């Protein structure tokens, strides 16, 4: 397991960027209920990111907004799975949702048992909300599991899903998803798709004077 600040930043960056990607469905989801669901899930994920950044910031001597918005694109540690821009492809969006929430549950279970009480506490708090994300993912999995487009999307995203977790946890994910472990797409310096997201996400922050209050 990585050292504490790295672990918090990886987790926070995953949640922030997935939250951002989920929010791209706001207004254009296939029907109104999903507009509401993806927007709400996005809001939760960004809330989790904020709390995780705050914990990391206490240790790094900075604040949550600086960690979320003031780093260069190369400094983000989010898994490649959450960086992919998937709108307007619903099958791939649901495949990512199912795979990410399954992987995230495994990560949270491990953190809840952490010796560090702060990490264990925040993981337990996040888990309370993640339960509903998994129920939503489960509902969609039931609807789409027999669809060829969904199966193709899972096939494509599976190496990315493995890259969300540390190597020692990957066999657990493989077992839960019912697939063989393959070479994972590892965390590395983010690519062009992320750079475009970063441009948009940090635009307001970069345009305002340092220290502006919102």
């Amino acid at each position, binding site marked *: 397991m990585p050292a504490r600040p790295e672990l918090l930043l990886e987790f926070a960056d995953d949640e922030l960027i997935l939250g951002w990607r989920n929010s791209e469905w706001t207004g254009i989801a296939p029907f109104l209920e999903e507009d*509401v*669901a993806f927007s709400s899930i996005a809001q939760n994920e960004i*809330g989790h990111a904020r*709390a995780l950044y705050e914990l990391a910031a206490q240790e790094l001597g900075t604040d949550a907004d600086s960690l979320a918005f003031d780093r260069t694109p190369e400094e983000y540690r989010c898994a490649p799975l959450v960086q992919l821009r998937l709108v307007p492809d619903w099958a791939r969006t649901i495949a990512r949702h199912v795979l990410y929430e399954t992987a995230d549950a495994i990560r949270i279970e491990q953190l809840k048992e952490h010796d560090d009480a702060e990490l264990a*506490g925040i993981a*337990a*708090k996040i888990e*309370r909300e993640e339960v*509903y994300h998994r129920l939503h993912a489960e509902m969609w999995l039931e609807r789409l599991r027999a669809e060829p487009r969904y199966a193709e999307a899972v096939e494509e995203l599976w190496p990315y899903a493995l890259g969300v977790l540390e190597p020692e946890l990957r066999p657990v994910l493989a077992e839960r998803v019912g697939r063989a472990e393959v070479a994972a797409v590892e965390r590395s310096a983010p690519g062009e798709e992320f750079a475009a997201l970063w441009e948009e996400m940090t635009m307001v922050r970069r345009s305002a004077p340092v220290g502006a209050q919102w």
Partner: protein
Amino acid sequence: MVTAEAVWEALAEIPDPEIPVISLVDLGVVKDVAVEGDHVRIAFTPTFMGCPALETMRAEMEEAVTALGGEAQVDVLLDDSWSTDKITPAGREKLREAGFAPPTPRGAGTTTLVQLQSRAFRCPYCGSSETRLDNIFGPTPCRSVRYCESCRQPFEQFKTI
């Protein structure tokens, strides 16, 4: 001289910014109040982590302490000490009266889809349990949307977390 009791009373007057029928004390988000001279330390536990009302709650608690002549320090606890079981019985009743079905008590295990899709949830308008889940998610992170088959009224269900 500020007393802990006066601070609790003042906090019980602050409405939840999104569901104003219920106070912050009813909501169970004030974990502790410690007073030393004029210094008032409030231990505050957020509800849903992405809830935009958290900043407003914090500012209103600080204002209430200032009005009592104290100096507030609000410590936001990022631990797991809040759950919907912390909402007081009076708070649950106020929610129901305002048309929000209160959260069901937390069971031993985690919530399942079968439970959410079951008819164990009562309509806050007519009391019928002939209700169905319309959407796990709703207008704010804390709510789901259900529909009452008896009085044909959609209603908001506070999520159990």
